[in-house]
């Protein structure tokens, strides 16, 4: 998977712009944008993780918000019990998401097609209801939480440091995904998407491969949840609502399915659009709903997919 020169330049410019955001907006006295861009980058990680199984693996998981919620509740619940060590919280967020993804994946991957969509959806709804019924941890009112504590030099109370931490995680997740997609494992997953029966015929235990991809994807989304709880200093079952799953899916579509950088572009496009249009009217979904239908009907490649492709396949 190689990038065209155009896309390489766009990525480099995008990265430089992101690095420059905190000093630039502070100079302009618009620090609100630090929070907004942080939020966008978190959802970019979530969308990227979904694209690993959706775009590359062809598994239409409509329950990705589950791991966003699990990651954030790892922070919230541990902080509630006064365990604010960031490393431990991150470990629990990733580990918890991995375990739940293993269970959900093991059940859902026994099926395919429409069943898979409906069951991933229902399983996430199950977690949503558990979140609501956990009265100790705020129930449906949610739970205010403190930011994670790392060593003294990473003080997350500072918005700049949190911003760069999130950016760092985004770059890391993109790197991991890039390595993964181009590895032998990634080839098998993409092969399953193309033609699962053939992959089985040449001897790959596709169920196990797909399950592992599902778990990796869930864990990565758990990281996004961990960061989201730190950014909002609040966890709520709303993070797991199935509308979140839908929105993450929209980001993947808008950016371009089955590309590595598309979901990141999609997260920016979708959340910026939401930010701008909701400034004009609070009823913006009335406009966005039909727009989404039109996007699906006529512009399926997404923003990133519209850019020219290199011959060797594309990032």
């Amino acid at each position, binding site marked *: 998977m190689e990038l065209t020169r155009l896309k390489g330049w766009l990525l480099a410019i995008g990265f430089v712009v992101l690095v420059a955001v905190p000093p630039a907006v502070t100079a302009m006295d618009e620090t609100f944008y630090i929070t907004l861009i942080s939020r966008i980058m978190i959802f970019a990680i979530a969308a990227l993780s979904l694209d690993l199984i959706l775009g590359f693996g062809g598994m239409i998981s409509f329950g990705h918000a589950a791991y966003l919620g699990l990651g954030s509740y790892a922070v919230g619940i541990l902080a509630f019990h006064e365990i604010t060590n960031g490393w431990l919280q991150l470990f629990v967020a990733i580990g918890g998401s991995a375990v739940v993804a293993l269970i959900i994946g093991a059940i859902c991957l026994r099926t395919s097609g*429409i*069943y898979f969509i409906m069951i991933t959806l229902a399983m996430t709804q199950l977690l949503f209801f558990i979140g609501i019924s956990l009265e100790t941890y705020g129930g449906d009112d949610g739970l205010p939480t403190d930011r994670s504590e790392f060593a003294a030099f990473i003080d997350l109370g500072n918005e700049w440091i949190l911003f760069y931490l999130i950016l760092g995680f985004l770059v890391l997740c993109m790197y991991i995904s890039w390595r993964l997609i181009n590895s032998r494992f990634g080839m098998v997953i993409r092969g399953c998407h193309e033609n699962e029966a053939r992959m089985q015929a040449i001897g790959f235990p596709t169920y196990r491969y797909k399950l592992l991809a599902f778990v990796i994807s869930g864990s990565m989304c758990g990281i996004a949840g961990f960061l989201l709880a730190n950014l909002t200093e609040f966890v709520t079952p709303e993070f797991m609502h199935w509308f979140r799953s839908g929105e993450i899916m929209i980001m993947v579509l808008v950016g371009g399915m089955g590309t590595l950088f598309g979901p990141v572009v999609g997260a920016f496009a979708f959340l910026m659009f939401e930010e701008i249009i909701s400034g004009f009217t609070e009823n913006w979904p009335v406009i966005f709903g039909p727009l989404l239908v039109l996007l699906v009907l006529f512009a399926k490649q997404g923003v990133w997919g519209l850019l020219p492709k290199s011959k060797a396949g594309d990032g």
Partner: protein
Amino acid sequence: MSTLLVLEQTLNGIQFGVFLFLISAGLTLVLGIMNVVNLAHGALFMMGAYFASTFVAWTGSFFIAFLLIIPSSVILGIVIEMLTLRPLYLRDHMDQVLATFGLILFFNEGVKLVWGVDPQPMPTPELFTGNVEIFPDAPYPVFRLFIIGVGLLVAAVIYFLIARTKVGMLIRAGASNTQMIRAMGVNIRFLNTFVFGLGAFFAGLAGLMAAPIISVESGMGDEMLILAFVVIVIGGIGSVRGALVASVIIGVFEVVGRSMLPIAMQQIFPLEIAQTVGPALASMLIYILMAGVLFFKPQGLFPARTG
């Protein structure tokens, strides 16, 4: 925990189940025969409830509202089918999911624009306002019995339609092998629109029946949609009989579980644990049931698709 309470809750559960059947019957046909994921079914249910509330406000009659619900929900369904779903039949499920998700966003926000954010009033029809004593000293609202009656009537009508008519034969054939009936020269386009319109009508009817007992507001269909999915997964995609059985099972589990499980747990565990775990477990119950059914029967209890 008295026997009377258990009986009453079971009856509530059956009523809720029958009500779920009204929603999932149409959806299971759409999913099974058209092989299309339709998230907008919950929105059709919501629109049914809004239409019902408006028609009752205009005419003051539940029966006339019912007569008006038939054309309005069918037309709405057909318009949706022609504009958004028809071009997507041959695309993958992801596209159908996103397009119908767009429809949900549109309708959920649209009703706020048209009817405002407050829940809409919907009186219980006068004929059914009273209570009856099915069990001694336990008055039960007539309207809830009426819902059970309507649900069973719909089940009978669907059974007749599917098992005894020509179009029903085509629907059954479509559910078991879509490719084949297309090859046999059946106008699948018309059949699809017919099935979708039928599904929209049942969703609208469910909206009408639900309006007096649950609050008519934006997003009321979202949770129902998930429950309908659970019903369909358990019953088997495309199987109306499966939908009926699964609806009643889910309805009883959901209602009885939610009311009884916390009480039952208090008798086994200390109060503190029971109060935390009880409600959580009760809300998990139907999903655990679904996972269990899938584990043993990945195609659901009554698989319709054989080929």
